[in-house]
């Protein structure tokens, strides 16, 4: 294998390791939120440091790669994509940490009725599937799968858009549960962000495999 490919493979592997770690944070976060598990939440919060050190390491590896290999064409696009996916993964890690902090404040699990009404767990599961499939798309360099992932984000947005009305109504009927309702609203907002960040990552996969820029496309069309 040419030296440049060995280095690119090292970069990709490091990114996949980070991907696994953030996936673990997100999956555990679901459990911590569902069960108001404080101990698990603390463990998720602590993992944030590890994610940050991956972020720094991958940034440095990319910087070195640019300096030493002056990549062009697909190599250049790959490293640019890795840099951006790295940033998005780190932010998803932050989001998982943020959700764990909400879970820490819960003195009991969310009211099942509220969970049912808001569809928050459906949303969580969808975000996890998107996150996981995006990893597969990156690993197998599959832009088709990446395109499918981008479409899935609509489901998250739909739940998010309804959430304020649903939670508002619920709180009118259950005024003693205001902190719980607000916490759930914040978690839904964070999950919506996870969907956006996974979409960003999927767009980078399409960019580096097909040399096509697909981000901001919808906005452009609307303007036209």
């Amino acid at each position, binding site marked *: 294998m*040419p030296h*440049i*490919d060995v280095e690119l493979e090292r970069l990709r592997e490091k990114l996949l390791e980070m991907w696994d770690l953030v996936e673990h944070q997100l999956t555990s976060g679901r459990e911590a939120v569902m069960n108001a598990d404080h101990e698990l939440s603390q463990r998720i919060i602590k993992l944030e440091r590890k994610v940050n050190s991956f972020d720094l390491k991958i940034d440095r590896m990319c910087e070195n790669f640019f300096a030493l290999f*002056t*990549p*062009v*064409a*697909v*190599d*250049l*696009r790959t490293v640019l994509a890795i840099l951006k996916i790295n940033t998005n993964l780190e932010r998803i890690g932050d989001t998982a940490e943020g959700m764990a902090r909400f879970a820490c404040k819960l003195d009991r699990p969310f009211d099942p009725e509220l969970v049912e009404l808001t569809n928050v767990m459906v949303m969580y599961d969808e975000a996890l599937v998107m996150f996981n499939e995006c990893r597969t798309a990156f690993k197998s360099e599959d832009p088709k799968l990446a395109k499918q992932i981008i479409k899935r984000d609509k489901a998250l947005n739909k739940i998010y858009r309804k959430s304020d009305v649903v939670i508002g109504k619920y709180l009118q009927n259950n005024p003693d549960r205001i902190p719980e309702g607000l916490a759930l609203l914040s978690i839904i907002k964070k999950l919506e962000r996870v969907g956006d960040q996974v979409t960003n990552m999927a767009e980078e996969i399409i960019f580096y495999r097909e*040399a096509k820029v697909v981000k901001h496309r919808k906005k452009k069309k609307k303007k036209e």
Partner: protein
Amino acid sequence: MNIKHSKLEAINLDAYYGDFHALKSINIAMEEKAVTAFIGPSGCGKSTFLRTFNRMNDYIDGFRIEGQILLDGRDIYTDDVRVDELRKEVGMVFQKPNPFPKTIYENVVYGLRIQGIKDKKILQETCEKSLQQAALWNEVKDKLDKSALALSGGQQQRLCIARALAIQPSVILMDEPASALDPISTAKIEDLIYELKKDYTIVIVTHNMQQAGRVSDHTAFFYMGELVEYAKTKTMFTSPKDTRTQNYITGRFG
């Protein structure tokens, strides 16, 4: 690719060294006052192609072309074209600096003397202007009567560029002009190319991918006598269309 004003053009160009088919049906138009880089592995035909623009291949036994090379829309291979006149219009700089064993001054004004110009004022003015254009004046202005061979490699190469500029060409062909130079001299040559393209059409052959990226506006990739891809340099180095181009510029050829 959209070319606003084509200075040089090849139309259905085939070139042969005896039986060897060195260039195959090349069609390309090069922008005026821009830098076009030719890249490709050794033996791909890029230097042969460069040399067709000032008919440097004419001296090689068995060399022949089919098709046309146009300079400002005029075929340069017709019988009525005088090669010495053509070379006034199309100057050339080679890989290895090749100053004559004469003084710096005599090197620069050599072309003018060949043309029969004897007026000292014209010769001196042209010498200074050319050396300034070649970013060498400040380094040599006090030793114009010294031998050109005493200059460093990088200075000798800029002297050769000054010598090419003195006869006021409109096109400058450069065949790996910096490959024998250290990084500082290379940077000076590249800066010079950047400055010169305001007034000249430059075609450069280079093996240095980064150099092609830094200095050229358009890049043409040649492989086994074919023009595989021709595009804006930015496009070529970020999203080349042809797999062969991608393999070559990313160093994965063969």
